[in-house]
């Protein structure tokens, strides 16, 4: 059984690899032999451009510096969103009063896309970092809250009964039952929030910034440099993928109990 699973996994990895290679080849042929080459850099050019950007600054920093600025903005907003979202989600999910107060307001604000807040964020916080943190915070906060709220609501009442019958006090029900059983939901929320925060930072930087990957793209647009734009776009993809993988790894460790295969 396990052997077969491993085989399937290997085949999957191989096919995934082949599909990426195929895509690159298609892209290369397209840029080398058709008109597309005039408006788009070939993957090989792009690769060199990417390497070049690793040591030659574009504007204030090299690509690393831009990535670092964007990532640190995301981390700041994301950390704030996590703390507030987890707290509010748990309160809404485990206290009927908290739910009654927060739910309607929450449902009203939730459908507003974070980008829609950009103008008001700039008016409130100016053009500095605060406005960006605010946008990133919003893009993570609602996702985290709604997932944790769902998780805390979904706690199996039978488990709460079982805990009480084993002598657990009401106060400890929260820490020993509600919290641990919400962990998979917490991670789902954090995972989605991290992806949307990463998307939001790019948007925020494209509106107004002096560095970061979003800036790289708008600046490239200003000077009509497609390969700079594409270096920006690609690094957004790569970093998004890495952040997502890290999240998945942590999740697999902490939520082993809800995933492990029967052996």
């Amino acid at each position, binding site marked *: 059984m396990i052997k077969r699973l491993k085989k399937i996994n290997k085949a999957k990895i191989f096919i995934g690899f082949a599909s990426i290679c195929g895509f690159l080849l298609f892209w290369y042929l397209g840029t080398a032999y058709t008109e597309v080459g005039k408006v788009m850099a070939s993957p090989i050019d792009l690769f060199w451009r990417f390497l070049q950007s690793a040591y030659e600054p574009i504007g204030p920093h090299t690509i690393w510096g831009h990535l670092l600025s964007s990532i640190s903005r995301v981390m700041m907003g994301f950390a704030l969103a996590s703390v507030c979202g987890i707290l509010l989600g748990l309160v809404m999910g485990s206290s009927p009063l908290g739910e009654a107060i927060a739910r309607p307001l929450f449902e009203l604000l939730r459908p507003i896309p974070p980008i829609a807040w950009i103008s008001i964020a700039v008016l409130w916080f100016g053009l500095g970092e605060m406005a960006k943190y605010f946008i990133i915070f919003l893009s993570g906060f609602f996702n985290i809250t709604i997932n944790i709220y769902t998780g805390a609501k979904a706690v199996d009442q039978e488990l709460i*009964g079982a*805990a*009480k*019958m*084993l*002598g*657990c006090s009401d106060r*400890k029900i929260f820490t020993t039952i509600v919290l641990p*059983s919400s962990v998979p939901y917490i991670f789902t929320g954090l995972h989605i929030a991290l992806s949307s925060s990463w998307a939001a930072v790019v948007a925020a930087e494209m509106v107004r910034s002096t560095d970061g990957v979003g800036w790289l793209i708008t600046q490239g647009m200003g000077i009509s440099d497609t390969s700079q734009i594409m270096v920006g776009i690609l690094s957004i993809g790569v970093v998004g993928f890495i952040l997502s993988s890290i999240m998945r790894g942590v999740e697999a460790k902490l939520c082993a*109990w809800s995933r492990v295969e029967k052996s």
Partner: protein
Amino acid sequence: MCLEPSREIMTNSVIKCENVSKQFYSDGEMVQVLEDISLEARENEILVIFGPGQCGKTTLLKAIAALEPATGGTITINGKKKTKPGPECGLVYQTIALFPWLTTMGNVEYGLKVKGMGKKERRERANKYIKLVGLEGFEKSFPIQLSGGMKQRVGIARVYCNEPDVMLLDEPFGHLDAQTRYLMQEELERIWQTEKRTIIFVTNNMEEAIYLADRIIVLTNCPAKIKQEFKVDFPRPRNITDPEFLKLRKEITGILDPLE
């Protein structure tokens, strides 16, 4: 055939239900589920409550445990009136209801941990009961990794370890395949013989009832009332082919309504 050298004298009643009744209201309509149930369980006996599916057995156990309190009558445990769920009653759920994020060890020691017992002491105690139910080597497994029978062993150990005054077992082997079910019945008897407890065991399986019980209380269909009580006094371990076993089975079958 005398396999029981010294049975404790079973006279003190640990748990007493007097005229217990329970109604539910659903869609404004009143549904009577339990009607005037009076029973007692004596120290260290296995009292089996036998009744058809959906007759109110789970409702009765939840009322005894005060998880969903009865609407009429009184329930006392060791003379104290039972009003809210607590560790003097231990329930082994029909749905097993283990804490999925805790390992076998985590589940078994849970009750001791929330009571504030030190790690070394509670590990020792938990280990004793993990061994008693035959789960040595699976201390670090999560419930999702265990088979149905093993999960229910964890459920039994979790309650045993907490040393309640009375253990309530709600069709604990109902989900198991027939073979595992027989095995678990033998196992439960062995565990109980090793360390006697007062057990109220609910089932809808007559052989299981006769195999395990000191006394059997037969319930009627919904609303559940007590139909009759049977004493099972032939020696353990019992065999389904014993003439006494067959005789009692015939006797119980005789009082059941044809619909049941």
